[in-house]
């Protein structure tokens, strides 16, 4: 579904990513793990086509990212970023409908609003639809943005979903809900999901395979059960092995 070959990214002569290769197959849930500052978010930005890597190729569905324009990309993949601050009084429903912004009416047709409502229902925030976005709690806002991202690909199959720490402010119930939604669209609609996670227990539970990053390099990658081991965690996060309980 998506492959990257020898990906490197540097900015101001500082190497953020070094020689990363990966392959994610369709329907897979792929985790990116690593300590703070390992380059996880940057990798996600490169893979999703926002930042152009300094060297290396990324193929989405066999097509090089460079050959896809913004609209085509917007119909193929959606991205949930870490933090979105909206400074103006927009309602929850308006925000969710913005996910339909790749359409002809930039998310303002009645179809777009219908889809936005269904997406809000899926992430359990439909009851907040007329509230101001800024009056919501962090977790609620995160669920609204998840709904927006889902709305973007609502009528698509075989698409890609990039999630950057999607559970950072969610309570336990909604963490499970979010991954249930992911599993469901992966199974039923052939979605491929690439997720940056900090919670290793959650990663073991939900991911099929993972990539561990350290200082911009591949630390290890492969099947989740084989990669996330006490030894690997101890070495990657520089904590004594006696503190690691899997």
């Amino acid at each position, binding site marked *: 579904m998506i492959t990257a070959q020898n990906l490197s990214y540097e900015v101001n002569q500082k190497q953020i990513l070094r020689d990363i290769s990966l392959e994610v197959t369709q329907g897979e849930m792929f985790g990116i793990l690593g300590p703070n500052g390992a380059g996880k978010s940057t990798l996600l930005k490169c893979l999703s086509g926002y930042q152009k890597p300094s060297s290396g190729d990324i193929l989405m569905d066999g097509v090089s990212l460079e050959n896809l324009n913004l609209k085509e990309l917007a119909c193929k993949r959606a991205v949930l970023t870490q933090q979105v601050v909206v400074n103006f*009084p*927009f309602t929850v429903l*308006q925000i969710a409908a913005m*996910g339909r912004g*790749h359409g002809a009416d930039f998310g303002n047709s009645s179809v777009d609003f219908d889809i936005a409502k269904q997406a809000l229902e899926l992430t359990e925030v439909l009851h907040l639809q007329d509230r101001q976005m800024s009056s919501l709690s962090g977790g609620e806002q995160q669920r609204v943005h998840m709904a927006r991202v889902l709305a973007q690909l609502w009528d698509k199959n075989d698409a890609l979903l990039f999630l950057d720490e999607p559970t950072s402010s969610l309570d336990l119930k909604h963490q499970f809900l979010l991954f249930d939604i992911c599993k469901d669209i992966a199974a039923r609609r052939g979605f491929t999901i690439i997720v940056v996670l900090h919670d290793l227990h959650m990663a073991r539970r939900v991911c099929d395979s993972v990539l561990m990053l350290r200082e911009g390099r591949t630390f290890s990658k492969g099947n989740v059960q084989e990669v996330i081991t006490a030894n690997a965690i101890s070495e990657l996060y520089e904590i004594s092995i006696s503190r690691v309980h899997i």
Partner: protein
Amino acid sequence: MISALRRHFTSEGLNTKSQYTNITLGLGILLVFLLVIASTIGAIQIPFQDLVTGQLSEFDQAVLFNIRFPRVLLAAIVGAALGVSGAAMQGLFRNPLADPTLIGITGGAALCVAATIVFVGPIAGYLGLYSLSFAAFAGGSVTCLIILRLSRLSGTFSVTHMLLAGIALNALTFASSGYLSFLSDDQQLRAISFWSMGSLGGALWEPVIVAMTIVIPCIIAISRKSKELNVLLLGEENATYIGIDTQRLKRTIVVCAALCVGMAVAVSGVIGFIGLVVPHLIRLMFGADHRLLIPGSALLGASLLLLADTLARTIAAPTEIPVGILTSIVGGPFFLWLLIRQSKGGI
């Protein structure tokens, strides 16, 4: 009460569109009404009934066509230009405090006008007005790009950097303008100081025509980008993911807003705070959707500056207060109130 009003207007659906049309129409009617009233008031009162029924004396007609109409129309156009550029800048910077005057765009435009007056000399007529407008546009767009650059020095956008960069640029352009007046001869000095007070006095048809041909296309161009501006509020990165060409959008907004500011500065000097107050009032009453905010800010800005200008020329009659002073007296405290409200998370 205001929030109740807003809740009423922000429900979704297809009726939103007709609602927006109705609000825009209402604001349009308000503007026309104010235009008529304002053109009857002044040193020479023109009876309202005579104006409506068309029974005007020749003298009244002359006053109306040569003095009043150009004056009220210019006030309306400059107000519209300032309102729209404020709304567009706030959308671009994704922050309600981004006012062209506060962040130095007006200052940049003013500096270029002063430079043109001093180095090229006052050019009269249409050619002169257009060249002043484009000089102001150049100054405005350059400062806008500098601010955009500086406000994201730390990697992500920072309001603090935006406002601080604005202070620095304002100081710089103010000092440079001051130096230019120091360099200029008597005639140039008169031209600069007359213009820099921010006044619509002595309006003729020429600036009205020039302003209209620049401002109206810009308002239309910005209005057509309003849906994309909505999505841009999610941030550049997220808007890109949704398929918006943010670079092109930013270019269009910077060019159009700088043209509006530049034109306003060229014909009327520095009139502050309209670009800050007007979009905020629209947001407070009707929500933040740019589909309404852009045309709404144009119409309300026109009404508000017309009102302010009418006050400025009648309040201390027979002399005139420069309208820029009046708007700043009202706008300064308003900005402080906005700042307090925002720091409490009220916006």
